[in-house]
């Protein structure tokens, strides 16, 4: 496979994963903003997903419509959903001969849906959840289309590598920023706060089934970092990342492969053999920061060893 093609597939996948994450987060945050606006703030969402300075973040913190408009439809925001989808589609467009026609049409439809001028009007005047649901459905269609149409070859591996690097990073980010809101105070006992965190990453039902003792910060950390059956946990994402990376093994390229395999193995062991206690002992922020740094280094190494074509 061409290096440029692998690069484009990887980024197409990362961008859609990011879109999906942002959309789900927005939906839940919006719902919670309708619940109890005095305790709710958009600050952490804006800190995770935008490049805004503190001042505009403070200004925006209770303006739900403005935040949705900015994060979904604002072309000036480099990380807005419309811009991310445009980039995902540009990447898909340049590798149309490596994705199925169905997948290309799906990306293309996603692009036309988000560019529909009515959308921004609906965000302003109507029920934003309807808009968000329509967009989330497009992302879900994308995942389903990959699953049922894409051949399980090298391209599929790069798509999944991109997806799980992005997801692991995102989950670490969300956890980190949410805990920074409460100054990493593990004893903070606000139930709704943790509930919305879990809802925004579709982990609420699993939490209820796993833990019977109500909402505790320790358990939230455990589920989001260490639960190997939770599809948005850091450990699950790293396991998947390793699984798809191993499919790239080839005799022609052993040196590059071994290098990244080593990095992945080290990261996996680190997370796999952590417990909530050891994480908290090290400090949640420090721990998550290390994980993110290693994920980033793996991304850089992929770039140097697999995508270098310029």
């Amino acid at each position, binding site marked *: 496979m061409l290096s440029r093609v692998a690069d484009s597939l990887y980024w197409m996948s990362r961008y859609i994963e990011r879109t999906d994450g942002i959309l789900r987060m927005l939906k839940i945050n919006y719902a919670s903003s309708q619940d109890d606006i005095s305790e709710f703030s958009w600050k952490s969402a804006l800190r995770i997903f935008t490049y805004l300075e503190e001042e505009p973040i403070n200004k925006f913190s209770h303006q739900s419509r403005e935040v949705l408009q900015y994060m979904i439809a604002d072309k000036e925001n480099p990380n807005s959903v419309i811009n991310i989808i445009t980039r995902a589609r540009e990447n898909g*467009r340049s590798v149309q001969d490596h994705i199925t026609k169905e997948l290309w049409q799906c990306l*293309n439809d996603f692009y036309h849906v988000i560019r529909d001028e009515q959308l921004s009007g609906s965000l302003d005047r109507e029920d934003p959840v309807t808009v968000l649901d329509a967009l989330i459905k497009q992302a879900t269609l994308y995942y389903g289309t990959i699953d049922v149409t894409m051949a399980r070859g090298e391209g599929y591996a790069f798509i999944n590598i991109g997806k799980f690097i992005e997801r692991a990073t995102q989950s670490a980010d969300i956890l980190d920023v949410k805990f920074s809101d409460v100054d990493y105070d593990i004893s903070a006992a606000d139930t709704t706060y943790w509930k919305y965190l879990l809802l925004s990453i579709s982990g609420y039902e699993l939490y209820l089934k796993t833990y019977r003792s109500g909402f505790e910060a320790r358990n939230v950390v455990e589920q989001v970092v260490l639960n190997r059956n939770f599809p948005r946990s850091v450990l699950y994402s790293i396991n998947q990342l390793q699984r798809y990376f191993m499919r790239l093994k080839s005799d022609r*390229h052993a040196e590059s492969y071994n290098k990244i395999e080593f990095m992945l193995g080290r990261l996996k062991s680190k997370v796999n053999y952590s417990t909530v206690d050891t994480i908290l002992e090290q400090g949640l922020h420090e721990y998550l920061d290390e994980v993110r740094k290693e994920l980033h280094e793996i991304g850089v190494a992929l770039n140097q060893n697999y995508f270098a074509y310029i």
Partner: protein
Amino acid sequence: MQGNGLLNNYLVDTNTWDEMYSNDTIRDQYRGVVEFLQQLNIDELSKKEEQAKRLFMSQGITFTVYSSGEGIEKIFPFDIIPRIITAAEWNYIEAGIKQRLKALNLFLKDIYNQQFIVKDGVVPIDMIYSCPHYLREMHQLPVPHDIYVHIAGIDLIRNNDGSFYILEDNLRTPSGVSYMLENREIIKRIFPDMLPRNNVRSVMEYPDILHKNLVSLSPRQTAHPTIVVLTPGIYNSAYFEHTTLARLMGVELVEGRDLLVDNHRVYMKTTTGLQQVDVIYRRVDDDFLDPLVFNPSSTLGVAGIMGAYRKGNVAIVNAVGNGVADDKAIYAYVPDMIKYYLNQDPILKNVPTYQLANAEHREHVFKNITQMVIKKTNESGGYGMLMGHAAEEEEIVQYKEAVMKDPRQFIAQPIISLSSAPCYMNGKLQPRRVDLRPYALCGPAGIEIVPGGLTRVALREGSLVVNSSQGGGSKDTWVLAG
């Protein structure tokens, strides 16, 4: 004739051949379609037009126009009424194009090698050397199977007595074939059952024939040669076509930056290292192909690729330097070429062509300028043309001055009225002018033409210019079986 009143306003220009009507009766080949259309009401037809637009949009069969930093997706205008060609007409066209292409191929081989045709005085030498697309780099460069033109898109028009004329030979990187394929797919969706009912021949084979031909050109004797389509990139207006062809053939679509040349071999950069490339179907013009040989500022091509080509380590499709054979001034000599190389009379006619470098011709043209179209010999896409009957006085004076500066770069032809075909416009069928571009594929086993092509249509009333860059659209083209 009535029904939904679709045909009420179909007024054929008296001096024009209409593809559907002859003396107020509908030609046999159109009867099935017209009967079907008359059963529909106008709303249904408009809905089908809408559906066609949506299908083009959602499949990304679009090109992007950039204005004020933002890309806008546009579709090429598509008319839902097919253009129909009878089996007899097709047999004649097919034979004519095969003959012409054979002669043009021999001409290219000759002109880049011994130049017999010049020595025998059939084509004057200054016609060759003054052509900007004649490339000395191609001299004595052996190409596989002596094939220069692997893919040709030869434009045909029909004048008022219905006879076909060759308008242009496109032998460099003719485009539009993906529209031949996609228009057909759209028709399958919006008019279910119409194709089998009318006995329309399939065009699906095109990518398979092209792929088979490309494989046969591989310099390396290997079971699975590496074949690539070279595109200028996603911002090219024909990018959709490049990616369609790559996908339908199952080959890699590459950009210049994906390739490199080492020791006179071309490689592509893959995730597992370099992989040698055997055949390049390039959609990049000669001038941008190799910055070491041609335009040094080009980043679309590959440095050193001409060296690899000369060594025979890579095949390039179409061959480099073909522009000398589809030059509009050389066009006038094609009938002579057919006689010279094949000892046959040309089957398809040329439009009479005046060389403005010839003083006698020039005088005749200037005297009758209102009945002439003057064209630049090395331009295509409908640019740089003067349509004498429609031009302002001042425009003509300016154009004449431009001609006098470098008369070799201009030719003139009498204005030929293109045939008209029905188009669906605002709830009515209206006649609009059309041309026809079949796609011919030339491989070691001979020349093959899939039964169909691109019918381009001038959507403005009375317009004779069908180029997409000048507001033209396209139609599905049906060739009927026997």
